[in-house]
């Protein structure tokens, strides 16, 4: 204690100097606005930094409780996620998603939009009339699709109208395959039920199940691959027992068909001509 007192008395003027400078400083910063503002802004940055450190330390001490809270929340979210995933999978089997897939596919093709102005459903050789003709670029043997799936093939055209042979026609034969596997066959219509068609010539070793989608196989000169036709709802043997005969529920509702698109793809005519030329030359060679 004595030493402290001695120290203080010896260096009293330093202490006094400090005090007087502090007083001057206070006067300087308080009564001069520029110096005061500089002081305030720099003081704020210093206090801000100190506050940051303090809250960092406080946070550190609360970490364990925070971790527990997060674990509980994590479990809740995982359960919710699982439920939502399940519901999404169920919803994906809905037509809403196949519609959007169709939209994506048709976006890549050159399409001529058209309206159905006449149709029949109850005859063995049903025909549709659409209001696009040769003036709009429609030609015979062009494929016709709608938002939900495959409709048919253009049969005859005039200047402003065209007649389409839909799937619901005894003469219709569309090459289709099962989505996912490469197996393909021919789709025909038996009459009576406008929502059902039959797919022939599926090999017996093919792997598929009920509910699988049927789409165009791409092995045709009319339709590109991937256009939805329908879903498999029944499996039976063919007449000769060598292959399967699938009962297909058609995706397109021909009862309320209104807006269709004619596929005006440029590659198909060339392929058709080449195939016909090949067949003709084989006929001549025989």
């Amino acid at each position, binding site marked *: 204690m004595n030493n402290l007192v001695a120290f203080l008395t010896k260096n*009293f*003027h330093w202490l006094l*100097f400090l005090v007087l*400078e502090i007083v*001057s400083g206070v*006067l*300087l910063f308080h*009564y*001069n606005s520029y*110096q005061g503002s500089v002081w305030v802004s720099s003081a704020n940055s210093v206090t801000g930094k100190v506050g940051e450190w303090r809250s960092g330390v406080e946070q550190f001490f609360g970490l364990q409780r925070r971790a527990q809270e997060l674990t509980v929340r994590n479990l809740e979210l995982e359960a919710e996620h699982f439920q939502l995933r399940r519901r999404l999978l169920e919803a994906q089997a809905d037509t809403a998603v196949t519609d959007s897939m169709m939209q994506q596919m048709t976006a890549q093709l050159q399409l001529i939009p058209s309206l159905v102005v006449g149709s029949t459903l109850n005859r063995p050789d049903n025909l549709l009339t659409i209001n696009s003709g040769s003036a709009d670029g429609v030609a015979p043997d062009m494929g016709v699709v709608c938002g939900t799936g495959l409709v048919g093939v253009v049969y005859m055209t005039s200047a402003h109208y065209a007649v389409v042979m839909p799937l619901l026609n005894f003469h219709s034969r569309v090459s289709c395959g099962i989505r996912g596997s490469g197996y393909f066959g021919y789709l025909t219509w038996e009459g009576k039920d406008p929502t059902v068609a039959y797919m022939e010539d599926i090999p017996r070793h093919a792997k598929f199940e009920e509910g699988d989608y049927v789409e165009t196989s791409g092995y045709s000169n009319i339709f590109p691959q991937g256009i939805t036709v329908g879903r498999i709802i029944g499996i039976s043997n063919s007449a000769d027992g060598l292959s399967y005969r699938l009962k297909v529920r058609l995706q397109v509702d021909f009862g309320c068909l209104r807006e269709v698109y004619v596929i005006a793809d440029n590659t198909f005519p060339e392929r058709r001509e080449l195939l016909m030329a090949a067949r003709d030359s084989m006929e001549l060679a025989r």
Partner: protein
Amino acid sequence: MTVDFLRRLAVFVALCLAQVLVFNRIQLFHCATPLLFVYFTIIIPRGYPRWATLLWSFFMGLFVDMFANTPGVAAASMTLAGLLQPYLLELFLPRDAEENIKASAASLGGWRFFALAAIIVVVFCLVFFALEAFSFFNVIYWLQCAGGSALVTLMLVMTLETIRK
């Protein structure tokens, strides 16, 4: 209330008034102001209590501040000058200096006194203008002000010294 104290007080008042009434109005070349009041600190004799030196300097600065409306600027600079003055005086003492030698040109010798005054005045001016501007954005201007003021102040101090004999 010793005579010495009263005498010192008289000098204090005279210098203060001179600064406030006369020298604060002078500004040479838009930067140099004579800051004669620092003379008060320079002439504090050797052996004077350090705390007393500090207090005198502080109050001189404070009063000038009050009249010049720059609170704290001169007070802080003067306190610093008051701190340095005893140490510098020790430095510039002649070999056979007495205990309570006066800090004047007569007792120290012209050049020693000039050196002492110069150092104190220059340091004082630098600090004074630094605090006044409170920024170093314009270093040239600061140096101009400090240098100019120091020069003018030194001239006045030396003039006073010659009269003081």
